[in-house]
């Protein structure tokens, strides 16, 4: 079977059920794994990216497509060798201490997940200690923090200090964002990266880990 039309269409539509069934059919028919991935799933996501950038698709549709791809990946992943299919990077994300705003943070997490990062979402009101512990526990590549209150921004600095104290600051990259956060503030507290919205957060994260 060399035609993945049904699969690509289902991914573009964000139709999880059909896409997973199509993947299973392809596997059962003995299709090449790399082909399912490249000509089926990735080809679909390329089209999604194209449609999104020309305004034919909106963010919820794009996220649904990414989610659909991930569900299909669950079937394919176990069949690949461990190192053939590494995830893009491990990200621990949360909204900082005393801040309960999570809409922007959730969007960033969804977009990054859609782009292939492994996300651990700690939710809101996350203390420096919790960020640090989780980062250690999962071996995070990136710690991503969100703050929507100018008064909770100092907690970002404290979290970076906590990472330092735990001796893992040089192992993780720190990304920050949220409406009151600025590029200047990021360099002031020595964060590695700032991004103004979810789309650019993905690009920035890839850049931090030197992946394309």
């Amino acid at each position: 079977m060399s035609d993945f039309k049904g699969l690509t269409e289902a991914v573009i539509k964000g139709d999880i059920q059909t896409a997973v069934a199509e993947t299973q059919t392809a596997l059962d028919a003995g299709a090449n794994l790399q082909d399912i991935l490249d000509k089926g799933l990735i080809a679909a996501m390329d089209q999604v990216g194209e449609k999104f950038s020309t305004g034919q698709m909106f963010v919820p549709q794009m996220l649904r497509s990414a989610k659909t791809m991930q569900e299909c990946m669950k079937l394919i992943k176990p069949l690949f060798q461990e190192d053939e299919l590494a995830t893009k990077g491990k990200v621990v994300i949360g909204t900082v201490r005393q801040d309960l705003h999570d809409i922007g943070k959730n969007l960033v997490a969804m977009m990054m997940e859609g782009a292939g990062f492994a996300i651990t979402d700690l939710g809101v009101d996350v203390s420096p200690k919790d960020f640090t512990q989780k980062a250690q526990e999962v071996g995070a590549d990136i710690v991503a923090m969100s703050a929507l209150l100018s008064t909770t921004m100092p907690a970002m600095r404290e979290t970076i200090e906590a990472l330092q104290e735990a001796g893992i600051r040089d192992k993780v990259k720190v990304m920050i964002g949220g409406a009151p956060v600025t590029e200047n503030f990021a360099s002031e507290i020595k964060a590695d990266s700032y991004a103004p919205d979810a789309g650019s957060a993905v690009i920035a994260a890839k850049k931090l880990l030197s992946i394309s």
Partner: protein
Amino acid sequence: MPMRLPPYRPLSPEDVRKIDQTSRRILERVGIRILEQSHLNILKAAGAIIDQSDQKVRFEAAWLDEILARAPSQFILYSRDGKNDVHLGKGKVYFANGGRVFRILDMGTGGYRLTMLRDVAHTATLVHCLDNISLYIIACQAHDLQPQHYHLNDFYHALNHTTKHVMGGCDSREGAEQMWELSVFIAGEEEELREKPFVSVITNPISPLTIDGNTLDILSFCCSKSIPVTCAPAPISGATAPATLAGTLCQMHAEALAGVAICQVFSPGAKVLYGAVPTTMDLRHMEYTMSSVEMAIMNGAAVQLAMIYDFPIYASGGVTEAKRPDIQSGCEKTFSNLMVAMNGADLIHLAAGMLDSGNSISYEQYVIDNEIIGMINRILSGISVNEGTLGFGVIEKVGPGGNYVMEDHTIEYMKEEFFYPDLSVRCNFDIWEERGRPSMLSRANDLVDEILDDGREGLLDTDLILEIKKKFPGIQNL
């Protein structure tokens, strides 16, 4: 001038009924998540159904009605001098500025900067002097204040710069206590403040369907002291609420009713405003859109929903995504303020000063919005039709071919019939050139300078100020 019949209703009576029923079903079946055991216990003792496993409170219909029946349908947000009392529930529309931004567009420098304590004082002075803004909401974060005496300071400087009613958010119960102690001291007696509260407090649930323990601590404290409150849901269509206007309204109405009900459990008869801050997301790129035209429609509809229960409403209007006072800010602000006003909202907050999706303010925007609201008030007062205004007598007198310029009739009616703007440019072209080509914005800038240069420092009595400072050493000078 009295308001006439509201001419625009986004929902039919049947729509209103369907939304209300759905909201009640949400409250009964889905419930509200409350993240604090002590409050769940209080609600349980009062008769609510508690799902202990997932920390949810559910409101059975008969019980909900019994609790909601305790809420007042009218009350007054008092000014300190009695000149600007806000009579809620009397069919009159009042406007307030918007609160708690972190950034200001500084026309002096043309750039943005963080807001400071002096901006609290200056915006309070602006509201004090602007006739169409009826009460002051603490406008911004004072970044030069330490957290421990935060609300002591922002309320003090607000109260010292306006005699209008002062509303504000409080970060914690301790913050609300500081604000209350200060207010009692200014009132003279606790009873006095209880009788005529000149301060009130804003809180919000977390959409969808969640209320934080800290928020409930603040509400329960304020209700126990008879300080008016609102617990105003801010659902975002397409993000924290369904991507349909009706669905967002169902969820918002459920959250708003829960807020009112919980306050009535805390203190029967508590002065609470039904709150509404429904907004939207631009789903093309997930840009938060506070000032979409759908926001205007939903806030208008929210007024209809509050009216079924006869609750005074704290609705929203006057927001914009524009980063400067410009064409976009002008039309976005006008749409929502007008639409919500035409639906007869008791109080429209965010109505003045806001820019940049609720993140920023500018002083100039305060005076511009004051003028927009002036025009809206003129629209609300409608066309007065009576023997005198029909003017048969003067029409007969002037007859065909004459003019009305010097007639008694003109002089009698000219002041009350027309709205006279301060900022709109109405002069002819040559005069406009002569005057250096003014615009609404340049004139707003001049008016701001005039108001703030006038040295209106310290409205509180000097002796009282000294006593306050002795009693509350945490107060900082400007």
